């Protein structure tokens, strides 16, 4: 697995300072940390299609775990992955409970295999979560009409070229080339951030 998070979430020096302040009991720094990763953690849980109560529980338990583990996070660069893996494992546990079945019960696999499969699943989910978040950060950094265009085309359902043209004032015939240029700008931001 590639090294996750090479500065797209936040410069390493900023995250290091933030975590140090949290360790010192700085509640203002803790609030900044929660704000920074709240949507990220919640999105991991929701992608497992958990009901609201279970997704809420995963969110709370993940931040409780973070609060208790602040002194054990040696490398701040790994914090996004740590959060994603923690939330993924908690989500998988909730899914298992929800389904009320396990491979162990069906006799298809022993506990080690089940846990290894869940670990692999949590890691894969964490990678997906981190990439999605990095892209979101890059889109915000892109800003301007490019950000609006790409969000309308790819993040809004049933968005047609006409509706994009009406909203952004770009002629329909120019949307294709503009889209390509904006994607190239976005790609460069992601390259600089070590996304690929």
């Amino acid at each position, binding site marked *: 697995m590639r090294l996750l998070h090479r500065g797209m979430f936040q410069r390493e020096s900023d995250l290091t300072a933030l975590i140090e*302040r*949290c*360790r*010192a*009991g*700085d*509640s*203002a720094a*803790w*609030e900044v940390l*929660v*704000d920074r990763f*709240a*949507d990220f*953690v*919640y*999105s991991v849980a*929701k*992608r497992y299609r958990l009901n609201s109560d279970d997704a*809420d529980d995963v*969110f*709370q338990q993940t*931040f*409780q775990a973070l*609060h208790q583990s602040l002194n054990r996070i040696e490398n701040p660069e790994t914090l996004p992955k740590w959060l994603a893996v923690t939330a993924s494992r908690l989500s998988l546990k909730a899914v298992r409970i929800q389904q009320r079945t396990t491979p162990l019960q069906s006799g298809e696999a022993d506990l080690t295999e089940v846990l290894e499969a869940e670990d692999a699943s949590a890691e894969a989910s964490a990678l*997906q*979560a981190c*990439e*999605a*978040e*990095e*892209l*979101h950060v890059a889109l915000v950094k892109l800003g301007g009409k490019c950000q609006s265009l*790409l969000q309308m085309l*790819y*993040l809004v359902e049933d968005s047609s070229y006409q509706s994009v043209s009406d909203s952004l004032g770009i002629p329909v015939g120019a949307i*294709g*080339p503009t*889209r*390509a*240029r904006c*994607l*190239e700008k*976005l*790609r460069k931001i*992601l*390259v600089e951030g070590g*996304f*690929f």
Partner: protein
Amino acid sequence: MLKKSCRDLGEALVEIAEGKSPAETTVRHLETCPDCQRRLAELRQMFGAMATPRFSAPANLVRAAKALMTPRVASMRLLRTSLQLSGARYSGQDFQAVFGHDENEIRVLYATVDQGWEVTGRVPGPEWQIRRGGEILPADSDGRFFFTVPSLAESGFSMVSPGIELDVPSGDQLSGSDESDGSGPSI
């Protein structure tokens, strides 16, 4: 047949990444151009990330998570000061004060400077930091810190360590009385 330049393939690569079938000329170019192959792979990875849904955390959950770190706040008590006994008026001269809470003490020096007052002190241990106005103040390797304020009324600050925040009152709140035996300045 003319070979398309990489620059001309911008839109075509986007359409391929979106799942559309490429033109034959584009296919031939891709077969021989590692740069365009890489750009296409990167576009596919970008679209994959964009397709991953993102959700906003409910405000009540965020509030509850923030409340996990709520420090215990207490005020430090004036223990000793170099100000003259009650009856004398504080007259803008430099002075020191020692504040305490449980086993924690801090000595603070208030000195007049051109801009107003310079407040100097040293944190009692490496686990402590000084916070003022929501910002952590830097301290040197010996734990010494300082800041400058236009008036004593703005000289209050906090000492922070994991789980506790101790407020040090501003210098203008000091009465100037020696709390020990009343016989004179104790610093």
